[in-house]
């Protein structure tokens, strides 16, 4: 049926790591991080690789009479949602439509914050899955902290549009998990762009993808007879890299202190790898850690303790339920599948209740996809997790479960202050469903990003078609 998907995953192609934790301070703008150690340029030009995203044209919109899951844990019946100037302006009953506003009769429809996927490889492992388009794993060294996923993202991946039809408004693209240090992640608005810069979520912090477990030791130890070939080799690889990064950071700090008084002070030679790791040590880059097993997650928390950084999110976290209390105490998110298990040894103990049990322990639970298929129905995956939790006696409401798809992933990737909930002032990233989104029969009907209608199931003119898919979109129907 799909003979290549699992093989690709097992060969390190698609096994990606997970993600990040809430950052203590407001994340630094992405470009600032990138430019940090460089000699300060006097011109006010925007930094290189900056976002060039501009919202699509939008009118004020009033969604009227819907069931609204706010993403803050509340459910409003027969409620209106008003979107003005790209922001959520108001929620309530009987809201007045501003002049010129589009009014949508949303009776019988459900409105949620736009879905956010904290773990995607769209663009770096795009459709079609050709060898020449496979750009997700720089599997040439266990440490490739110097690479940035955004330099691989192909904006013409038809998967972006399919994810949009699944209600996804923001997503984090990660490098793969072949390496201990896979590289920087990039957070995108799910909008059509000519370049990845056109899609970059303005001001979103960078993440650093790192990977525990089977993949790095298989790719390097088994494949190349080099370190790491064991889990202890993995840990040594992490520690050595952070020792170097710490020195780099300290040398840079010393230079910054000395430069005013010592004219001959020299900055350390710029090193992209250490620049990224220093960003982690400085708390500017969120650690997004692919890690399946409970015992390995505990090791990684100790690694973070040794070097004084935080792990934002464990991605995949198939055994998070075994240490849910530890994860809650550390404030680390877990980004999980609803029911993936048993395809490799470190996934053998996957259970349906993982997400619900992590959530019940007070830890941050995120439903992620890691899949161009799964990203199209994250709502259904949350529905499975909710049902499993209920079966074991946990009282999980739709208004709570939606936070696994919106608020919590926003927190995991560091944009929760801007999106992920329907609150006045937040970005108007909104998905309108034709029914209860936790039903298998529900479909996203309209999707708004920054207030602009970017997808309408009933209006082909409001459906993006990438260049690759041009002329291919099956006649007379949605992909």
């Amino acid at each position, binding site marked *: 049926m*799909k003979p290549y998907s699992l093989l690709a995953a097992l060969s390190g192609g698609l096994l990606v790591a997970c993600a990040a934790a809430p950052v203590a301070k407001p994340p630094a703008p992405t470009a600032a991080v990138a430019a940090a150690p460089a000699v300060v340029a006097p011109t006010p030009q925007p930094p290189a690789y900056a976002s060039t995203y501009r919202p699509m044209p939008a009118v004020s919109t009033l969604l009227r009479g819907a069931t609204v899951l706010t993403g803050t844990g509340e459910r409003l019946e027969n409620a209106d949602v008003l979107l003005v100037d790209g922001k959520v302006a108001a929620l309530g009953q009987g809201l007045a439509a501003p002049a010129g506003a589009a009014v949508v009769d949303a009776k019988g429809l459900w409105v949620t914050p736009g879905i956010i996927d904290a773990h995607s490889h769209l663009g770096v492992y795009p*459709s*079609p899955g050709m060898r020449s388009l496979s750009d997700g794993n720089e599997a040439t060294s266990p440490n490739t902290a110097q690479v940035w996923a955004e330099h691989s993202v192909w904006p013409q991946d038809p998967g972006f549009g399919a994810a949009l039809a699944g209600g996804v408004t923001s997503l984090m693209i990660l490098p793969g998990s072949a390496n201990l240090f896979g590289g920087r992640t990039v957070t995108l608005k799910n909008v059509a762009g000519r370049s990845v810069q056109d899609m970059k979520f303005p001001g979103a912090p960078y993440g650093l993808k790192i990977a525990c477990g089977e993949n790095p030791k298989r790719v390097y130890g088994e494949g190349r007879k080099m370190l790491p070939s064991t889990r202890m080799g993995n840990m040594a690889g992490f520690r050595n890299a952070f020792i170097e990064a710490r020195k780099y950071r300290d040398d840079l700090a010393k230079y910054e202190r000395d430069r005013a008084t010592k004219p001959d002070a020299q900055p350390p030679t710029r090193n992209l790898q250490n620049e990224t790791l220093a960003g982690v040590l400085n708390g500017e880059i969120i650690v997004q850690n692919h890690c399946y097993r409970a015992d390995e997650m505990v090791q990684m928390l100790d690694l973070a303790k040794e070097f004084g950084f935080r792990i934002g999110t464990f991605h995949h976290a198939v055994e998070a339920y075994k240490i849910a209390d530890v994860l809650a105490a550390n404030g680390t998110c877990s980004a999980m599948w609803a029911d993936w*298990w048993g*395809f490799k040894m470190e996934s053998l103990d996957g259970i349906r209740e993982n997400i619900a049990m992590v959530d019940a322990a007070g830890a941050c639970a995120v439903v992620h996809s890691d899949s161009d298929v799964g990203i*199209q129905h994250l709502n259904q995956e949350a529905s499975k997790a909710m049902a499993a939790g209920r079966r074991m006696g946990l009282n999980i409401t739709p208004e709570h479960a939606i936070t696994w798809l919106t608020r919590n992933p926003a927190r995991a990737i560091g944009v929760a202050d801007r999106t992920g909930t329907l609150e006045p002032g937040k970005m108007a990233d909104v998905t309108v469903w034709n029914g209860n989104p936790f039903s298998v029969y*529900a479909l996203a009907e309209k999707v708004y990003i920054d207030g602009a209608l970017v997808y309408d199931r009933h209006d082909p003119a409001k459906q993006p078609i990438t260049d690759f898919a041009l002329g291919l979109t099956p006649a007379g*129907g949605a992909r």
Partner: protein
Amino acid sequence: MNARSLVLVALLGTSLLSSFASAETIALRGATVYTAGPSGTLQNATVIMQDGVIAAVGKDVRIPAGARVVDVAGQFITPGLIDAYGRLGVTEVDGEAATVDESAKGLPYSAAFSVAEAIEPRSQRIQVNRAEGITSGLVAPEASMDSSGLGPVIAGQASFLRLKPGMAIDVRTPVGFVFTYGEGGAALSGGARSAVLLRLRALLDDARDYAAHREAFNNGARREYTATRQDLEALQPLLAGKTPLLAEVHRASDILMLLKVAHEQHLKLVIIGGAEAWEVAPQLAAAKVPVVLDVFENLPSSFDMLGATFENAARLNAAGVEIAFAYAEHYNPRNARQLAGNAVAHGLPFDAALAAITRNPARIYGVGNTLGTLEVGKTADLVVWDGDPLETSTLTTQVYVGGEPVPTTSRQTLLRDRYRTPRGAVPPAYVHPTAK
């Protein structure tokens, strides 16, 4: 389970679908029953299971004396779900070759290779998926490339496995011959589709010649064949048109080519995959060739699938093509019903979606006379659900195989129960939840 049978009942090459007689007569009373058969959906109905088969199903059935009555009011019953194309029992952990028996590298055999004798009936995968409603499945071999870069043109024989608890293996072999075409098949034949067809025609020609001249062959008085004697022998049910060629293929033009080849060679054909099958739906319907598909294959994942769409199932069904659903990730056939639900969301009628995971796969694999619907006389493989069986929020409450209740617990539920309470002074290793 009641009895622990140590009898190995695998009878290769024969049809063995009769059930062990259940000691108990069970009446499930008051459910909404989706029969997937001529009776359609019955409200507030009763199903009686006796001696491993369905003794009665309907609204006004007499409950036999001595029957155990189970009140399932407000619940929903379907036939046991069928994994329409998978690896149950022959693959345990994909990433660990030692637990994988679905393919053999560098073997001189092809059509003779059968997965049936490798089946582990106590597989965790079977446990987990059966507890969630899968009661039988097609177990397919997979072609793998040898060191010279070639693979067999026929991967081997597929088996139909009923997921009975215990050591008894109820398997029927062969129910199909796996043949990989399209870009995947080309890769196994040096890179060209035409090479695949060349090899297939040569193989079938040899198998016919062999069958007509067995004695000459044994006397060494026949030309050299492209396959072993075992393979040529194994292919006879395929040549007779009794056992189908299970063709893994997506591209519409490839499907048309296979329709032509099947016609020319008098083969029974089943399309596996068929992401672009909707584009040739009238031809498939006319040839009465069914399609086993994955509803989630809606992206142009390869140049063979540029026409992939969520509406594949609905369009094929509307054109009169028989369809079945198989979930691509073989560890989770329990998600076949999610495929069915998504097909409904994209235009397929509910009854057709349910048939695609029950009645149709049973029929396609030649077991429709005993499985796939809830009708009197059929094997009592059925599932009781706490809601709409196609909903992702629905779970099983009871599962029966051959009229016997099977565990709805698994190693997964044991892990859950071990870790469900916050950690106390005693390590989890001392918490011993028990299976029911």
